[in-house]
């Protein structure tokens, strides 16, 4: 096989990994959006905080014991993300929601929350000597197998892909099969009525934020396992996360699919464009965004429509 074919294969593998990361990150965003209708721009910061919390685990656990450290990293990350997500809802979003704020107000509030979180972390990192301006989970990924010395599948691939697929399935089942999930959807659909029917909407909301925060920071952990993370990392990725969520029509399977599509479009098309047309890889993000816009123009409600997964359409 020629180098180009290996290159395409490598780009595809890489697209899988990056796409899974986008998808994984977008799942939590989708969860929040589905239940509370908030397009949460502060979501990016939960990811960053998760990565930082994962790294903080290495202060407690000796890095030599990598299995324990991995577990501790995940625990630290998810609990930190869950707490921060819940706190941002309790302090900001819930009071606004009670007042009946419109979507754009909630969105702007989330930008405010994001600014506070991001710049606090940035300031803290910069003013404590700079060692934490960039962090990396001490256990890093390993190559599992490699094709032609070029394309390889690593433990990061396995982690990102499995966890994304797993979480997407779990969330989908949660929403369609369980009492809690249906209560979440009911709360999203008609909060007043949900309350009347005896659903504890406040509790449902809290569970939602805890889960979404934990998901976000799990993604943050995965990210720091794969790449170095700085206080702006989540923010930089946010547009991709939103793209995956919107393109997926805010359905969990849709997010999975569109995350992968974005990742693969960016990498495979980017590689081919670079190799054959000489278009620099600095244009790769453009490819992903053009994919997003094109998909939305053709299918304005996203790749998978929300109801089509839940039920048969009305005849």
């Amino acid at each position, binding site marked *: 096989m020629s180098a180009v074919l290996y290159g395409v294969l490598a780009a595809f593998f890489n697209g899988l990994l990056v796409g899974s990361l986008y998808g994984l990150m977008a799942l939590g965003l989708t969860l929040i959006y589905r239940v509370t209708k908030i*397009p949460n*721009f502060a979501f990016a910061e939960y990811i960053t905080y998760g990565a930082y919390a994962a790294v903080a685990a290495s202060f407690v656990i000796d890095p030599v014991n990598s299995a324990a450290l991995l577990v501790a990293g995940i625990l630290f990350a998810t609990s930190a993300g869950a707490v921060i997500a819940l706190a941002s809802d309790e302090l*900001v979003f819930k*009071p*606004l929601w009670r*007042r009946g*704020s419109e*979507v*754009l*107000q909630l*969105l*702007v*509030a989330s*930008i*405010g*929350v*994001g*600014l*506070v979180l*991001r*710049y*606090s972390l*940035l*300031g803290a990192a*910069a*003013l404590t000597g700079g060692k934490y301006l960039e962090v990396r989970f001490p256990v890093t990924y390993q190559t599992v197998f490699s094709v032609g010395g070029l394309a390889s599948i690593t433990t990061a691939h396995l982690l990102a892909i499995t966890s994304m697929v797993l979480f997407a399935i779990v969330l989908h089942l949660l929403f369609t099969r369980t009492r809690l999930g249906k209560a979440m959807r009911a709360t999203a659909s008609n909060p007043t009525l949900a309350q009347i029917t005896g659903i504890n909407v406040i509790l449902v909301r809290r569970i939602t934020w805890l889960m979404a925060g934990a998901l976000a920071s799990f993604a943050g952990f995965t990210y720091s396992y794969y790449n170095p993370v700085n206080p702006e990392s989540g923010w930089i990725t946010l*547009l991709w996360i*939103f*793209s995956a969520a*919107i393109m997926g029509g805010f359905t969990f399977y849709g997010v999975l699919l569109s995350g992968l599509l974005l990742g693969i479009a960016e990498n495979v098309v980017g590689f081919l464009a670079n190799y054959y047309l000489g278009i*620099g890889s*600095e*244009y790769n*993000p*453009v490819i992903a*965004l*053009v994919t*997003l*816009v094109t998909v*939305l*123009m053709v299918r*304005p*409600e*996203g790749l998978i429509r929300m109801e089509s997964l839940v039920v048969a359409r009305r005849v």
Partner: protein
Amino acid sequence: MVEAVSGILVQYLILFAAYAIMSLSFNMEYGFGGIPNFGKVLFVGLGAYTFGALAAWITLGIGTSRLGLEIVAEDEPAYCTGTAKYVFSQIVEGGVMTPLEITGITLLAVVAAIAVGAVGGVVASYPAVRLRGDFLAITLLAMGEIVRLIVYNSPWPVCAFDGLSGIPSPFSVMGLEHNISVAVVSLATLAAVYIFVSRATNSPWGRALKAVRDNEIAAMVYGYNPARIRLQALAVGSGLAGLAGALLVIYSGNVNAISFKPDKTFEVIAAVMLGGSANNLGALLGAAIVAGLLVFLNVSSLRALGIDLPASVGQALPYMKFTIIGLTIILVLLYRPQGVLPEKPLKTPLIEWLKRKLGRK
């Protein structure tokens, strides 16, 4: 001290005017028309690129021929070269061109910036007719990023990541105090834009826009064409955004795509939300708050005001600035949910007075 304060005040007024124009245009689209134009910065950018490239191109063309120079540029516009910067500096200092010529070029480029912005708005109305709400917002945001990434990476139209710099200012050529002149012109422009936008939003067209926002079907019943009204709103709003972009370039003398990240859109949206959506005075007030926070929450501005921060606080201020902006947004939304000035039929004395004045003509 007085000089320091006035210098910072001048910067504040310029940024206020630019943000106010952007806010008024976003407010017209979103507040009155319900179109969440998250690509605002795209149109500001289009205006800036157009203004910068056109002004630089014409000025350089005339300048080089008068100086008897020839510029050879490969793979990039001539105005990106070092020689071009030399020519520009000669124009400012050496009287190579008359103030009238520079002013003419500037005005022409401003008109072009508005026109290109408006055309961009027409293009953006294609998704705006098809998509709603969050989907539209993200699509426009993505379109903005697509354009920004391309402009940032390609030498055309504004010299890629280096940016186009040193564009001669008509005020410097005229021998005026540059920043003060820009402030005066910006405020005058803002006044004109404000009158235009309030008249537009109070006109039958403005009511049609609101009708489309509140109930599209009802609006259709009354004979309005929602798609057409959205297109008009986006075209006018984006033209105004282009104007704001041109003003920013006149002020700084340079244009670089990196300045047009989505953050700027968010600042504008925050301004409108803070001031009060669907209220033009609110948009002004919001812009005043946002520009104020951006300009005054800095070590040098505070020093100019006689506030001397301890060194440690000074070092933390660049970070605290945005934390404070974030907190302000949150607190205003929590305690003044409709913004400082809520939506209401516009019948303020100032506007009534202006209307009478204008009506008499």
